[in-house]
């Protein structure tokens, strides 16, 4: 019996559960003298689709006692295996290395501490003064390495190296030429997502060797994702599931980690018809029809992290009993008091309509409709593309009174709802806090949200839907203004 809640999210380190016939593994003969052959072979097996990069890295590193280039910069997209390959090489071949994640190093002292303790033990790291400078680090390193010189190349691996740009300005150039400064057989490997041109300091520095880890192609992604198939089902079924998943998600996301997470979360739903007995393993079309809307919904919720994975799994369990498809959205859960909804709608209209048009839209008798150009030249592209404009409180209240369907007295409860909206960050206050007589606000929600809440308000506010829509149209097509005017004036006369 296969239950969804017991499926754990697997850690990133990919382990082979069983070799499958589907995957043709390349027989790579890694020629690298100085390292044991069988270790190299097992290493190559653990790094699928990365055999070329492994071979090049080993060629660059050379034999353990030879010198290697002082600094290497490895770049590539997220989840392309950069850290995994480098750290696997270091661990399996048992090379002396210090692996530091630059996100953890809020100060450079932490970096120095980690490097020294990895190479020379914690006693050496304890010799560092309180706030160590780069000078202290280099001096101490020289001292320690003269006591115990390097028989093999030492490697310093700096992950997420883009954070180093925000640390001391001399840290990056100094680490790039560390081999020369400490006169020892040490190589610094930088791993990053961002290209080298963004790292280079103003006056230049020692250029590292650039090495690119290419992204996985679709076929390679299928190959890698097929490796963690569930033992109760055949690998072919899992491979076809992965193909369906990639068909939905590949054009949006090519990140291996995300795809793996989505694959694990949705597999139980995919297997539902098989469990219930409604379909066999070869009925791919039926299984596809079952899973495809589910994956589309996953794209709108779990992929965007609007819903956590636990909530998603819980939903799947609930749906097994009920058969309705519920649309999840974070916005649907916001509950606002009655007048706050009108205030928000009024704020949206105030932000996106120029003030000149208020008369025409909101007054019942606005006189003749003139044929002048509705929007001024500079406003033609502006409204919905440049963002909301600030409006004073008086204008908001004026629009509010004309929009709300019953008579509302200007009591404190109405005004306090405005400040609640500001606290909820649905409105934002523009200008100084202590401007008490005419505060200015801006609407910070989108049209979709306004339409969603206007549907919750009672039916006669349909006209507001139309108004909101008309604002969308007007900013794009100006020539239809006359018909627009007649439509709006007809609404008011209703």
């Amino acid at each position, binding site marked *: 019996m296969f239950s969804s809640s017991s499926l754990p999210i697997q850690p990133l380190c990919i382990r082979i559960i069983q070799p499958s016939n589907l995957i043709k593994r390349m027989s790579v003969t890694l020629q690298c003298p100085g390292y044991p052959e069988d270790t190299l072979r097992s290493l190559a097996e653990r790094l699928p689709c990365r055999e070329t990069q492994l071979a090049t890295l080993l060629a*660059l590193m*050379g034999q353990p006692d030879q010198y290697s280039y002082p600094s290497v910069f490895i770049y*590539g*997209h997220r989840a392309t295996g950069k850290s995994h390959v480098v750290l696997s090489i270091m661990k399996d071949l048992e090379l002396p290395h210090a692996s530091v994640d630059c996100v953890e190093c809020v100060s450079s002292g932490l970096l120095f501490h980690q490097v020294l303790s990895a190479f020379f033990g914690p006693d050496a790291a304890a010799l560092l003064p309180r706030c160590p400078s780069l000078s202290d680090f280099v001096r101490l390193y020289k001292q320690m390495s003269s006591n115990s010189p390097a028989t093999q190349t030492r490697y310093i691996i700096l992950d997420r190296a883009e954070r180093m740009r925000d640390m001391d300005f*001399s840290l990056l150039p100094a680490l790039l030429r560390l081999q020369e400064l400490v006169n020892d057989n040490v190589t610094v490997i930088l791993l990053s997502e961002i290209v080298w041109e963004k790292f280079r300091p103003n006056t230049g520095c020692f250029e590292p060797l650039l090495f690119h880890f290419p*992204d996985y192609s679709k076929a390679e992604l299928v190959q890698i994702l097929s490796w963690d198939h569930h033992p109760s089902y055949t690998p072919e079924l899992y491979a076809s599931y992965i193909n369906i998943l990639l068909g939905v998600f590949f054009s*949006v996301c090519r990140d291996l980690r995300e795809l793996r997470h989505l694959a694990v979360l949705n597999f139980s739903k995919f297997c539902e018809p098989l469990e219930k007995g409604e379909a066999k393993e070869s009925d791919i079309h039926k299984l596809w029809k079952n899973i495809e809307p589910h994956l589309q919904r996953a794209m709108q919720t779990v992929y965007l992290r609007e819903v956590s994975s636990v909530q998603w799994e819980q939903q799947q369990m609930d749906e097994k009993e009920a058969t309705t498809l519920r649309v999840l959205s974070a916005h649907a859960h916001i509950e606002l008091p009655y007048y706050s909804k009108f205030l928000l709608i009024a704020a949206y209209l105030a932000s996106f309509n120029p003030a000149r048009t208020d008369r025409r839209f909101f007054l019942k008798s606005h006189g003749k409709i003139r044929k002048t150009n509705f929007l001024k030249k500079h406003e033609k592209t502006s409204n*919905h593309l440049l963002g909301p404009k600030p409006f004073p409180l008086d204008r908001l209240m004026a629009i509010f009174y004309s929009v709300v369907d019953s008579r509302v007295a200007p009591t404190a409860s109405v005004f306090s709802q405005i400040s609640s909206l500001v606290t909820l960050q649905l409105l934002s206050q523009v200008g100084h806090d202590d401007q008490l007589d005419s505060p200015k606000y801006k609407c910070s929600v989108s049209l979709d949200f306004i339409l969603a809440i206007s549907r919750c308000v009672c039916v006669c506010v349909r006209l507001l839907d139309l108004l909101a829509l008309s604002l969308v149209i007007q900013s794009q097509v100006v020539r239809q203004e006359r018909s627009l005017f007649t439509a709006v004036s007809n609404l008011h006369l209703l």
Partner: protein
Amino acid sequence: MSKRRSLTEAQCVSLAQKLLRERLCHQKLPDRPLALDSQYKHLLELLRRTAVHGESNSVLIVGPRGSGKTMLLGCVLRELMSLKEAQKNVLLVELNGLLQTDDKIALKEITRQLHLENVVGDKVFGSFAENLAFLLEALKKGDKSSSRPVVFVLDEFDLFAHHKNQTLLYNLLDVSQSAQTPVAVLGLTCRLDVLELLEKRVKSRFSHRQIHLFSSLSFAQYVDAVRAQLSLPPDFPDPKFSDAWNHSSYTQSLFPLSAFTAGIFKPIHLFLSVSRVSVSHSTLHEADLLEASRLISADSKAIILHGLSILELCLIIAMKHLNDTYDGEPFNFQMVHNEFKKFIQRKSHSIHKFEKPVVMKAFEHLLQLELVRPVDSGVCKVQREYQLMRLMLEHGQVMEALQRYPQCPTDVKQWALSAFA
């Protein structure tokens, strides 16, 4: 007669790699730097005058990165220390602008390297003012005849000029101008305008002696220099192997390389080619050098564009169109989304409509890759969708990336090529 056991091919290759790697990476000093004879003689003469005759001097060695400044200095110092009179006398203090980022740290380092009395073990006692006074006192007490000459080497000299008040530079150059301990101040820098960084009082104490290192080699000299770097020494244990190695022909491939290397002493290409040598491939070929230069000259941004998803690529094309239409003015996410929607509605067959949050997530991925940057980084009082951004790619890069993109749908390509979207 000693019988030499002939080494196997693998051992030869391994030994050759070891030698060359040490020469290229560890940058062992050559016997004599190539094509820098006049500069070498000049510098050696200056230092000899300080060391032997007790004359104070200051000189700046200026040259672009990779032109051999540190190497030149290393060779000169090595020869200087081999002179009998200098060997026992000269004190050497080496400072680096990257490491000694502050005058305090620099002063402590000088005191430590000179082994003055306020150093115990490794720790330097006293405050900055006390250390400075002590050092100057120690330096001032001497004179030409009785005290030992000191050579100060300041690497990354331009960084010292950014310290507060340029105290260290002022004091060192002051000592070098007055008749006290013979002192030689050598600065190495890559900036040609380094003198403008100095304050007036510091500049006037400097002797304005500059040694420039610009590589002015003809192609034949360049080829000779590279061959010298890559050839195995005559005492290599297997003479047949070293003969085959030294006579392998790769001269033709050096012509494109010579165009964009700063100097012959920047050995990335050579290192890459050497690393490809293995047992199956035991001499250096032209293909190795060409492959190395191809790897080095690759455009990394275009390579990164290869790994983007289709949605992200469409966003980049939309931004490119906005740039073309509005002449490079900054845009925001709302405008990009608008362009993308227009494409979906009118021209696209293969890409279906994505929800706005999904498009926003793709846009944020581009932000994280720094292909798009906000105009005013930091202050964001504006909502995320309306914050103004700029595209960090050029028209040509985008088009080139499109050509290489795997399985790019034709309607996307046509959209990119159309002049008015």
